[in-house]
């Protein structure tokens, strides 16, 4: 199996897809699935990068500080992200299209800013507790502090000085153990696909599609719209957190800057390019969009420009994305029978 994988990598390296690129592609595919879930339910949320950041930080702290294995750490990260998604989703998902988009952008930014200032916040909380000038408390904390590398508390003449470095703000966490391997990502994607295929055929999946088509009708049909939307949001958050967890253990370093608005736009671009008509669409979109800048070497330095053109071009010229079952059928149909194409063209022109 290992030899086979090596051979596969040798083959793809000829077109510029080396192992890190492959990892990036697979993570993009997971992220694309995460946004596909919400888009499929008709919710335009841009919080995925925020949940990804939560997943990355939680799992990295668990493996680095507590020595957990990768799988329990990612599982824990997914649960944490899911738990955070519930109180966020309950109020936010009442909003509709543009309001929802703005609110979720706001959420993702708040997560990023909190990560940047997390250490300072904790520091000032500790300082606040110690400022009560309780001699016993300070002594107790300082004895606790003696065997901790993260927290340093020094008593000066008339005040307490606290240093706390867990997340290290904009500098990011360094020296993260590299634990993620390609097969884990591939396996996770396969599990996700199987899960989603099963989901689409279930009562819940049909409810998701119904809500996308018409929320009012769906609720008249007896679908609990609030419940379905929230569960989908939580699932999406958990998948994004898993992607974050995997990505955190790839590069030895994570920093809040990697989970900003740009990342959200990238994730959105995967789904828009691939199309959200079927589960294959966003995966293809993610793989293609991550691979193309590497395959076309010249494009690499124009990465952002390329993403922008893909986003704009796809939404204008490929409204249903690259993978569009109906579109493929229509294209072949019109190539072989002229009459039908005219009708279709007229409809579109009108």
């Amino acid at each position, binding site marked *: 199996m290992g030899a086979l994988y090596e051979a596969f990598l040798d083959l793809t390296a000829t077109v510029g897809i080396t192992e890190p690129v492959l990892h990036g592609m697979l993570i993009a595919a997971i992220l694309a699935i995460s946004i596909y879930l919400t888009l499929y339910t008709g919710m*335009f949320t841009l919080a995925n990068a925020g949940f990804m950041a939560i997943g990355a930080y939680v799992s990295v702290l668990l493996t680095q500080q507590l020595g957990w294995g990768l799988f329990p750490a990612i599982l824990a990260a997914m649960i944490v992200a899911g738990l955070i998604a519930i109180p966020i989703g309950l*109020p*936010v998902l009442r*909003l509709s*299209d*543009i*309001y929802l*988009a*703005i*609110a979720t*952008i*706001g*959420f993702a*930014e*708040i997560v990023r*800013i*909190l990560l*940047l*200032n997390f250490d*300072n916040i904790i520091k000032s909380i500790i300082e606040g507790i110690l400022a009560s000038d309780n001699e016993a408390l300070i002594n107790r904390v300082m004895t606790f502090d003696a065997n901790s590398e993260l927290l340093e508390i020094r008593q000066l003449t008339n005040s307490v000085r606290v240093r706390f470095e867990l997340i290290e703000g904009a500098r990011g966490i360094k020296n993260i153990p590299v634990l993620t391997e390609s097969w884990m990502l591939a396996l996770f994607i396969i599990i996700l696909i199987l899960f989603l295929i099963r989901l689409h055929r279930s009562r819940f999946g049909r409810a998701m599609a119904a809500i996308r088509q018409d929320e*009012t009708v769906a609720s008249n049909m007896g679908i609990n719209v609030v419940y379905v939307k929230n569960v989908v949001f939580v699932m999406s958050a958990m998948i994004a957190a898993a992607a974050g967890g995997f990505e955190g253990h790839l590069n030895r370093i994570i920093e809040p800057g990697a989970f900003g*608005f740009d990342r959200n*736009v990238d994730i*959105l*671009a995967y789904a*828009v390019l691939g199309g959200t008509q079927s589960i294959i669409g966003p995966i293809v979109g993610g793989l293609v969009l991550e691979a193309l800048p590497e395959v076309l070497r010249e494009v690499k330095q*124009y990465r*952002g*420009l390329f*993403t*922008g*053109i*893909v*986003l*704009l*071009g796809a*939404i*204008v*010229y*490929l*409204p249903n994305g690259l993978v569009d079952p109906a*579109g493929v059928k*229509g*294209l072949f149909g*019109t*190539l072989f029978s*002229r009459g039908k*194409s*005219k009708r*279709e*063209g007229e409809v*579109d022109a009108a």
Partner: protein
Amino acid sequence: MELFLQQNINAISLGAIYALFALGYAMVFSILGVLNLAHSAIFMWGAFVGLLALDPEKAPLLINFILVGTPLTVIGMVVEYKFIQPGMNYTRSLHLAIQRLIALIIRVIWITILALIGQQIFIQLMPYFPETLTILPVVALIFASVAGGILSIALEFLAFRPLRERKADRLAQLISSIGAALILVNIAQFAFQAVYGRTEAFYPRDVTIFGIGTDPITLGALTITPIRLMILAIAIILMIVLQFMVQRTQVGQQMRAVAFNEKIASLLGIDVSRIYILTFFLAGAFAGIAGILYGMTFLVTTPFIGENIALIGLTAIVLGGLGSIQGALVGGFLVALIQTYSVAFGGSSYRDAIVFVLLFIMLLIRPQGLFGQPEQKRA
């Protein structure tokens, strides 16, 4: 007390810029019902063009670019509307996707040819320009606003009109505007690299508008930079002009009619597409002016200044109620006040976080804004 007054003065000057910027968001939203997330990129381009115009060493580049670019753009538009768009019909027998693809390829080819010609003329013309060229700051303001307006119209044609004609939903237009923003910001990065060699550039410090300069005046314990007052005055005059235009002129009446109901306005003989172009131009022009004023205030500009103000502008229009022009004004000043106070009392690192928390809470408890009426839901 002095600190309090000082903070208020800073906040009002900043708030005027935010309000100018948020106005554009609100105008586009009220008339088209879509959120133009590329608005912040136009703001950034306004700051960049304004910088080029104010920097005596770079001004020749800008003038040259305008001299070369204007006729080429006119030629390009004539070709597009006289030859390419009518000619697109010859592909009618093919499938729509292929038609679109052919049209796209033709467009890319001739735009590239035009751009290459323009580049050559630009290089040939460059030696004829003087080394330094001082442009009046007022002219720089006009340059920035026109640049913003033109970019905004380009956005309308590239990112919004095709989708509107297809009757795509609002989210598709939101996505296309995100794409357009990304393109504009990245082009700006290359432009910064080409002109300044890095992605950060500084405004000249000694800019004077109508003789009012940057030397701080001290009034008791207060320190006021006169140009900030000038910036405030310009912003307020522009807002009054806009308000007059929308409320008192015939064009403004037409704009309000289109905002109320596009179909009925069109039945009444209003050229809806012209109103859209006008709206985008005005919004872009305001963003461009906001950009150059922001640059004059903070004396530095990068390709990324739009990112922050995009969310500030969003917060401002959400506070005032999406699509309400007066709301955007109030929202802009309010956000600036809150930001300034959070810096004064908390710390600068939470400045943005407080704005976003405000945005978030506002959306949850009063999505229609502080003064808006709840939107009637039409099922």
